[in-house]
């Protein structure tokens, strides 16, 4: 699975997506977030674990207890600032 990262999260991670092994799924969004956070810099970890980070599964914003399954598209991003 490819986890998509946007804005600050992408900048801190240094890439717009992170590879993640399908073997570890299913996981909740929160479990996935903690696991992914441990892979990056301090800056990245802090930004990803911030309480206002959003997760979208299949392009829909979901809660932290949502279950991520094989084949899902997952994205993490900070609060939106369009318009």
């Amino acid at each position, binding site marked *: 699975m490819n986890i998509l990262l946007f*804005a600050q999260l992408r900048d801190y991670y240094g890439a717009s997506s992170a590879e993640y092994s399908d073997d570890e799924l299913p996981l909740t969004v929160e479990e996935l977030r903690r696991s992914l956070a441990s892979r990056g810099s301090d800056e990245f970890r802090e930004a990803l674990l911030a309480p206002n980070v959003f997760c979208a599964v299949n392009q829909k914003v979901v809660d932290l207890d949502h279950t991520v399954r094989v084949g899902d598209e997952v994205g993490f*991003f900070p609060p939106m600032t369009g318009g």
Partner: protein
Amino acid sequence: MFEVEISRTRLNLSALNYRFAEGDESIGALVSFTGLVRGNGIAAIEVEHYPGMTETVLRKQLESAAKRWPITRGSIVHRIGYLPVSEPIVWVSVASAHRAAAFSACEFLMDFLKVDAPFWKKELDVDGVWNWVEARSQDQSRASRWMGRDAATLI
């Protein structure tokens, strides 16, 4: 007619406005919002988005607006990429038979675009440094105003 467009090139407001109202005699009111890059100590902004999700979210917002108010047309066009000061970022337009629905729907669309559509902005400051824009809590509270309100009371 509900349209969503993500544009890499400068928004042609004249063309957008011109095309929008044509050919429907039932339309009595058009309300348009244009957001521009403000020059408060910055030289430019850069806008990125989540391709695919953005379009889905904006289309759903148009559908929600059409459920709440009797609107005839709705259009959201949002820029991405590098935008200098005073350049249009977003154009939201709503057409309806009467003005009350058009005003409410247009403001509703902008309020939710700000908090629910996956766009992110960074600003180029006068020292040439890029800074990510922080979300404003006012935007969240403006969007919340629409929650649980009966559509009828807003017309």
